[in-house]
């Protein structure tokens, strides 16, 4: 079976609740069949609204959403055949786990035998085989979460939506559930649209991530590209850690540019700057800057250590570098013979390729 492209398609979708403010602006988003796409963004960025529009609980103010090429704006939620996992699980508290899972099958008028078979299969998929007769209130948060996932999948929907499903779990459980959901997705190949504000979750689970801010998709790409090659300063700031320098382009040629700072100058990779004189923010990931680099690097600076924080597997070092006193370095704790002491001056180097000159903040 060949994967259908743009299985889910948002086409120029706008959404406004009060007629004054657009919470979603001109959204275009194509999701391939079987893909795991995460909508990531700070709260109020419009990601949950997008999910609700896809589920049918909100209608787009303008534009159209297509599911397998069919416009769905006028289809009520119960006819869309989209599974959904809610933030607070939304299990029916007066039904057993079995009845919860059987609910979507019963409304589809399946036979009792078929229902039992499907529910059993769904429960064993989330490894809750013996829990069919429990009430949701007797389950732990993680178990309830798995029941909610099983219920959203039991009727074989073509798309499953998940609205911050792990938000209420503790850190360890959240991490193991991330892998579990990822594995379920891989084994049954359903299309998943996942909403979260937790970037770690998004990076772990997704095929592609749509970073939302201010009602717009800032960048839609795979986790590694998103981290390594952010296209604007919001994405660079929002995903992972990030050292920034604000400055002005003084020279641009052959895939590099010179950015003049208040104190000094750095060579950077021009991403969204086109011409000399433009304002820009240069972004460098902490792990791309090295201390006392052995190889020759085209950026070499001296910085003064202002803070050293021990983190177990690595040490975070805060430097004052080129007038930026918030410059962070991550030093693996295996490296030795380094002169990391408060107040010392050390050499820092990075490649111009890793210093991305983005839009000014």
């Amino acid at each position, binding site marked *: 079976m060949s994967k259908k492209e743009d299985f889910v398609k948002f086409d120029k979708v706008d959404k406004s609740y009060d007629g004054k403010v657009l919470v979603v602006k001109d959204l275009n988003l194509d999701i391939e069949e079987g893909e795991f796409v995460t909508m990531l963004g700070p709260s109020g960025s419009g990601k949950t609204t997008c999910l609700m529009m896809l*589920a049918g609980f909100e209608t787009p103010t303008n534009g159209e959403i297509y599911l397998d090429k069919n416009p769905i704006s006028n289809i009520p*939620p*119960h006819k*869309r055949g989209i*599974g959904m996992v809610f*933030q607070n699980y939304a299990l*029916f508290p007066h039904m057993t786990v079995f009845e919860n899972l059987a609910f*979507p099958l019963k*409304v589809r008028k399946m036979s009792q035998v078929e229902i039992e078979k499907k529910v059993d299969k769904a429960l064993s998929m989330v490894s809750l085989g013996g829990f069919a007769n429990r009430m949701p209130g007797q389950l732990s948060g993680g178990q309830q979460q798995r029941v909610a996932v099983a219920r959203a999948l039991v009727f074989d929907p073509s798309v499953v*939506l998940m609205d911050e499903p792990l938000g209420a779990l503790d850190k360890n459980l959240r991490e193991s559930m991330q892998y579990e959901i990822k594995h379920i997705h891989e084994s049954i190949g359903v299309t998943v649209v996942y909403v979260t504000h937790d970037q770690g979750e998004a990076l772990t689970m997704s095929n592609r991530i749509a970073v939302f801010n201010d009602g717009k998709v800032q960048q839609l790409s795979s986790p590694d590209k998103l981290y390594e090659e952010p296209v604007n300063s919001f994405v660079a700031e929002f995903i992972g850690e990030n050292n920034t320098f604000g400055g002005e382009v003084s020279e641009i040629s052959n895939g590099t540019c010179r950015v003049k700072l208040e104190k000094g100058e750095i060579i950077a990779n021009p991403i969204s700057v086109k011409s000399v004189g433009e304002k820009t923010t240069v972004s460098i990931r902490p792990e791309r800057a090295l201390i006392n680099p052995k190889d020759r690097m085209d950026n070499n600076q001296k910085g003064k250590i202002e803070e050293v924080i021990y983190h177990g597997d690595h040490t975070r070092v805060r430097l004052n570098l080129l007038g930026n006193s918030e410059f962070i370095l991550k030093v693996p704790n295996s490296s030795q013979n380094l002169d990391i002491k408060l107040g010392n001056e050390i050499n820092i180097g990075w490649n111009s390729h890793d210093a991305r000159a983005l839009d000014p903040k």
Partner: protein
Amino acid sequence: MSSETGKILTTDGIPLEESLKQSEKKNKIKAFLLVAPLLLFLIITYMIPIGDMFSRSIDDKMVTNMLPKTYKAMENWDGKELPPEEVFEAFYLDYKILVKNKTAGKLQTQLNYEKNGFKSVLKKLARKQKKFGEGNYKEQIMKVHKRWRNVEYWRAIKRRAPSYTYSKYLKGIDMYSNEDGKIVQVTEDRRIHRILWIRTVEVAFFVTLFCFLMAYPIAHLLATLPMKYSNLLMICVLLPFWTSLLVRTASWMILLQQQGIVNDFFVWIGLVADDNRPEMMYNKTGTYVAMTQILLPFMVLPLYSVMKTISPSLMRAGKSLGATPATAFFKVYFPLTIPGIGAGCLLVFILAIGYYITPALVGGASGTLISNQIAYHMKSTLDWSFASAMGLMLLTGVLVIYWIYNKLVGVDNIKLG
């Protein structure tokens, strides 16, 4: 340390167990003292009156104490024919004392409950007995009024011999124990209480039903509207609470009377002819309308408090799983509101079954309830023991309903807020 002996000691050397008991004892006493005023209040205002009501409803000592000699003489009388001379003599002696003490009136009233027409016979005897000579009282008494020759009057006296009686309860359901001691129904034209009982249950049932049908959407709206609108609506629901019950009932009288606003409106929209205005007051309709309005908040509030806790995402989940809005409502939302429905219905039904003022004012003859009958006996006939008996029957009925409810739904499922 003390672990060698197996007992753990506190630093003072007292065994831990004892020291724990002591410290908890203090707490227990403190807790008891805190609830003691309430307990006392409940005993004084609730347990004692109910106990008093019960003893009053079965108490029949008054007659027994007024005719001590008569009842002693009657012990050997089988009640088939007229009693022997010594009963007449004893009755004459007892009655003489009562007349002298000016307490004969009470006996006359009491015996008149037992047998109609007894009062005038006794009054006549009171006048004539002063001239009685000694001996052969049977002849002398029978000469005063021919009814004294009727054995039924003597049986009526004998029926009042026991100190306790359940006759008031029988009377409450239109039954009595006849001259032969059998329990039979009163004649058909006098069976008024049974009609009232049935009407009371019927009115309470329909008022509960109407309240439920009206309150459910209101409560749902209250629970789902945004705060600023729901607060306003809540005030509208609670507004009747802040108005006197009498004022509310009186305003219904203004609205519902034949020349009232509601009838005017019906005529104006052409629903009824001007010369054929329906009577909506002084009958059951009036009782239904006014009681439903007055009891509505008692249904809305428990429903609201339950609905408030139902997450809106449950309905969404139901829909996303493929249920139509109606299915999602009946399979998901409705079952979750049952504790509120139970609480509201129980509350309204129990309040309605003992309702008094509203039916008294707007009920008329066909809209009065059992509580109006109780009040009538309290105020007009002064038959307090009968009023107590009916009050207790009402209380028992409520307890039975509560028991059935507990069996069906479970009282721990109730949610009042």
